[in-house]
């Protein structure tokens, strides 16, 4: 404890450069990190890619571009996009309310935002299904209006909203905390309305964080399986998501087909990961330019 207090670290950057070889353990930790990642992540993923190379082009194409699989891509990406969009709006709203306003129970609300990270997806899946079923708490209110969400593609969107809810909140919240009130004051004193301050001053400064959160929410939703399969109804061509297609092919011992579809999903994950990295780099540059 005393050590933690005795020497605060005001600016780490110049020290870091000088210290490159002062601290021991670089070889050990880097070596272990690379070894562990290779065994657990990289070798299995390359097994997927190499297995897909052993498929003929026709085999691969018929697996990844059959009408049923194409319909699943549309559903998976469409529903994920809608869910991420809803979370973009409400995530910003929740982050805003948590950072800027005071109200009773704020600490609990803040903690509750992480519930989708902590609650197993299968539990979320059955809970949402029981809520939205025609005899459930919410479903029984919607059914007389002719709205049925459970066992429909709309139910998938609800499940994906749930599981990807924390991403936008948690990426925007720290950035919003760091925004400088002086800029808003300056804009206000120059005659800007509150709405103009929000759209012209605040929104540009939190845009990179917003988009990062959006992309993370989207990436998480695309790969989601546990919460969706309970609520989706899983009808081929209508409400069958791509991860379920992979499982279905595996259960029919069509390992080649499952591998092909999995490679398509893996490529999409890589693309999204690169996009998120680029957005984060943009955000860091933006933060650096402000200070």
């Amino acid at each position: 404890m005393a050590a933690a207090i005795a020497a605060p670290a005001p600016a780490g950057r110049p020290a870091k450069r000088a210290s490159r070889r002062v601290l021991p353990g670089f070889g050990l930790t880097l070596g272990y990190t690379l070894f562990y990642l290779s065994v657990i992540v990289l070798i299995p993923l390359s097994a997927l890619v190499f297995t897909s190379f052993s498929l003929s082009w026709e085999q691969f194409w018929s697996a990844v571009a059959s009408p049923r699989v194409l319909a699943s891509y549309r559903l998976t990406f469409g529903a994920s996009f809608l869910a991420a969009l809803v979370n973009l709006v409400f995530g910003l709203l929740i982050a805003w309310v948590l950072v800027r306003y005071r109200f009773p129970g704020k600490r609990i609300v803040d903690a509750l935002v992480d519930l989708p990270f902590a609650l197993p997806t299968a539990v979320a899946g059955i809970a949402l299904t029981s809520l939205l079923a025609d005899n459930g708490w919410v479903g029984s209110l919607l059914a007389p209006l002719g709205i049925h969400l459970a066992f429909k593609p709309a139910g998938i969107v609800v499940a994906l909203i749930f599981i990807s809810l924390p991403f936008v909140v948690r990426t925007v919240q720290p950035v919003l905390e760091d925004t400088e009130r002086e800029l808003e004051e300056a804009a206000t004193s120059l005659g800007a309305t509150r709405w103009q301050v929000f759209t012209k001053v605040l929104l540009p400064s939190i845009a990179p964080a917003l988009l990062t959160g959006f992309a993370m929410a989207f990436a998480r939703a695309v790969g989601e399986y546990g919460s969706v399969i309970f609520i989706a109804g899983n009808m081929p061509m209508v409400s069958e998501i791509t991860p379920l297609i992979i499982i279905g092919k595996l259960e029919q011992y069509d390992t080649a087909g499952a591998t092909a579809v999995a490679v398509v999903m893996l490529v999409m994950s890589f693309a999204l990961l690169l996009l998120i990295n680029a957005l984060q780099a943009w955000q860091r540059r933006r933060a650096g330019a402000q200070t």
Partner: protein
Amino acid sequence: MSAGSVRNKAAARSGTTEAPWVRRLLIALALAFMVLFLLLPLAAVFAEALRKGFGAYLDGLREPEAWSAIRLTLLTAAIAVPLNLVFGVAAAWCIAKYEFKGKAFLTTLVDLPFSVSPVVAGLTYVLIFGANGWIGPWLMAHDIKIIFAVPGIVLATVFVTVPFIARELIPLMQAQGNDEEQAAIVLGASGWQTFWHVTLPNIKWGLVYGVILCNARAMGEFGAVSVVSGHIRGQTNTMPLHVEILYNEYQSVAAFAVASLLALLALVTLVIKSVAEWRQEQQLRLAADLPPERPHASAAGTPT
């Protein structure tokens, strides 16, 4: 709190906050969204579990298959979390403490399991260890079972939880810099001593936070485990898989009873996480508040 209210008052004066009715409307909207999407599903789990009374709830938990699922889930987490703890500390040390070529790429690799679909992760292990996989025939000849057995479940769980602890530690260790460790080394401490006595006390709350999130995911993982488990009742069913089977057999109360245990785990996770987060903020603030030119002030301000 007092600092916040002062700031809010100042903000109100200088016109950098909204009209009271806008504020109330925004708070109401945010809370309504959270009640609808977070609180209601959580409440539904417990309501469904207790729908036929407490006796039926306990009956659902007393099933031997439920017990074996709980045991397997605990075992899986007990292996996966320590493995990723050691990895997380090692990865955070080399990424946060040194500059080297390819660091950004390595950080991306650590994050990779977050963006790979759990189903795809499970499939990769089937392709290696499955009956027709790379080393499946060899394993079969030596009577080693990995897929449709416990080792496969553990491996799949480890894959999906790889980034959790490293992700928490890297930004924390970067923010703290290297000064304290360098001072310890210069004063003659060994690398291990430096880690145990200097680094670890600084990162302990971040570590708790990472471990507890990693544990929640390890116990709750569904997609990846579902691919490699084979769903053999009483043998390779984890709690989430057991919930699925019960639910699909229309044993709703039993399904929600097991699910309620997982929901309790989630609530405990959130509480521990909030405490850890709060303590970590406190620690950082105390360290940041100290003026560097008056190091002896630390004696007065030591938090305990």
